[in-house]
């Protein structure tokens, strides 16, 4: 036996301050964290509680959407677009239909155009309502605002279900129009839902907007400058919250939007509070558009009879169709080689592009603010990862 006396090891002093000073802590937030809106991970480097570095990691929900689109027919891609941003399947359908219509030069009947506007604005209502609920949920207003928001959202989803057959995976639009016509009773029901909506908005504003805690958590948090927003390609309510007047409904005037009178709400500071209020104001404008559309909607067919949806072969060429989705510019880029499948099928998702500046928004804020900022960006992982 070899007897040896262990010498005491010199240890550094173990007080808290000496160990943590100046040392960064890396935290992996997500991908299963409930407030990351799906499977999204952020590698955050923290100095104490302050974020000094943030790296978004995504791809957990990658489903090969674009490659599938290149291997299915033009019609077959339509139900897949529902699954991009599963909150706004109607606007996804419209963006895809619009780019195929551009590619093949298809006309859309008047009534179908009105139905598309009605459904897109209803989608905007329900997306923004659920966003407000989720954002407050992330802030710690657990449950109540989210449930109030979902109660309203469900009314819109009921309309979608009775028209298209499915609450969220609507698969309603086709290139050349819409799949089924909306009856007069559906229009009446939709009118009722839209007329009751301002009451909910007033109530919701009373509930949260003047709340001191909310103001303290959101004002001056996650400021985005207009320059950075433009350079990074940010679109939608996030861009308009910085005061940049850019709304594709006005800029492109796709569909029949030039016929409607509406204002584009603009923010001033570009902080989280502005982004939140932007959604409330946009919903009020959407209600105005819907009421005009209900008044003007004509009768007639909803589908262009010349369009053959099965074995559809557009001519050679390329097209980029874009719309103002609830989250920002949603575009589909298609290249046709004259066959039944697109040669290239590319999605320009608003959530993905809006997410790229997350680090710039979060630097210098606390961990708790990261969740609020992420909530205000309004992402859906189905669209980010595709």
């Amino acid at each position, binding site marked *: 036996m070899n007897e040896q006396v262990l010498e005491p090891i010199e240890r550094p002093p173990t007080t808290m301050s000496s160990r943590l000073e100046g040392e960064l802590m890396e935290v992996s937030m997500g991908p299963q964290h409930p407030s990351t809106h799906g499977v999204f991970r952020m590698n955050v480097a923290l100095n104490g509680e302050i974020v000094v570095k943030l790296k978004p990691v995504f791809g957990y929900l990658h489903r090969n959407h674009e490659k599938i689109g290149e291997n*299915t*027919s033009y*019609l*077959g*891609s*339509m*139900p*897949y677009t529902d699954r991009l941003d599963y909150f706004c399947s109607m606007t996804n359908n419209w963006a895809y239909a619009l780019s195929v219509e551009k590619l093949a030069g298809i006309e859309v009947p008047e009534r179908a155009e009105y139905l598309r506007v009605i459904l897109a604005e209803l989608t905007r209502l329900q997306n923004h309502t659920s966003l407000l609920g989720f954002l407050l949920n992330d802030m710690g207003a657990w449950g*109540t605002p989210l449930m*109030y928001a979902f*109660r309203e959202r*469900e009314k819109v989803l*009921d309309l979608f*279900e*009775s*028209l*298209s*057959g*499915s609450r969220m*995976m609507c*698969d309603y639009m086709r290139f050349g129009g819409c*799949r*089924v*016509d909306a009856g007069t009773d559906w229009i009446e029901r939709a009118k009722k839902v839209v007329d009751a909506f301002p009451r909910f908005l007033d*109530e919701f504003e*009373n*509930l*949260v*907007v*003047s*709340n*001191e*805690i*909310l*103001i303290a958590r959101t004002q001056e948090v996650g400021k985005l400058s207009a320059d950075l927003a433009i350079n990074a390609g940010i679109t939608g309510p996030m861009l308009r919250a910085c005061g940049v007047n850019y709304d594709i409904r006005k800029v492109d005037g796709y569909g029949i939007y030039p016929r409607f009178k509406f204002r584009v709400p603009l923010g001033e500071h570009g902080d989280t509070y502005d982004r939140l209020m932007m959604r409330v104001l946009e919903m009020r404008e959407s209600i105005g558009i819907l009421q005009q559309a209900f008044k003007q909607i004509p009768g007639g067919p909803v*589908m262009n009879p010349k369009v053959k*949806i*099965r074995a559809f072969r557009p001519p050679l060429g390329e097209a980029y169709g874009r719309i103002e989705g609830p989250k920002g510019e949603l575009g589909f880029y298609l290249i046709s080689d004259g066959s039944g499948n697109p040669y290239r099928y590319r999605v320009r998702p608003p959530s993905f592009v809006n997410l790229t500046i997350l680090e710039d928004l979060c630097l210098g804020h606390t961990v708790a603010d990261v969740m609020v900022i992420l909530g205000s960006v309004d992402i859906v992982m189905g669209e980010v990862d595709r």
Partner: protein
Amino acid sequence: MIGTGILKGMAVTARNFIGSYFEKDRLITVQYPEERNPLPENYRNFPFLIYDGNDAEAGLRCVACKICEKECPPQCIYITKSEDKKPDYMGKPQFYPAVFDIDISVCMSCQICVEVCPFEAIKMDKVFELSRRERFDALLTRKNELAKSNSYYHQIHPTEAAEVDAKLTEAAAKKKPAAGAGSTQPAGASPSQTGG
């Protein structure tokens, strides 16, 4: 004054809480297995095959043309064409599907098969309580499970079914003189659009 915003919010919560006892609009929860919301008429879930008359084998409208199999985006339909022909509901000899399976664990309820079917043979069902004990075989629905009568279709989608029936009788009336002249074309020139 600080705190008024919070009090305003509390008032809204209180109004909702008390209102839930009096206003139906504020209490919308449905206690699912006991209570049920009626399904909208257009509701769709998984496809099924229609047969006319009482015999599911003889009255099946499907002629195994495989268009739905080809167009199905997630490729969940499997069809094998029969070797022989049998008379269809209009009395003409037609092929029929020897095997017709739909994998409902793959199906995404997009109803493209319904839209592309030229024979009005496949429609969307409304059954949604489909939990099974096994993962594999039980979720692959076979031809005998898929075949449902036209009267069932009338029961679940009354307006749509009436339109389809009107379309089919019109097509049959048109085909009658042609069939007398010796044409062997299958009866199925109806447009691929459904609903309207």
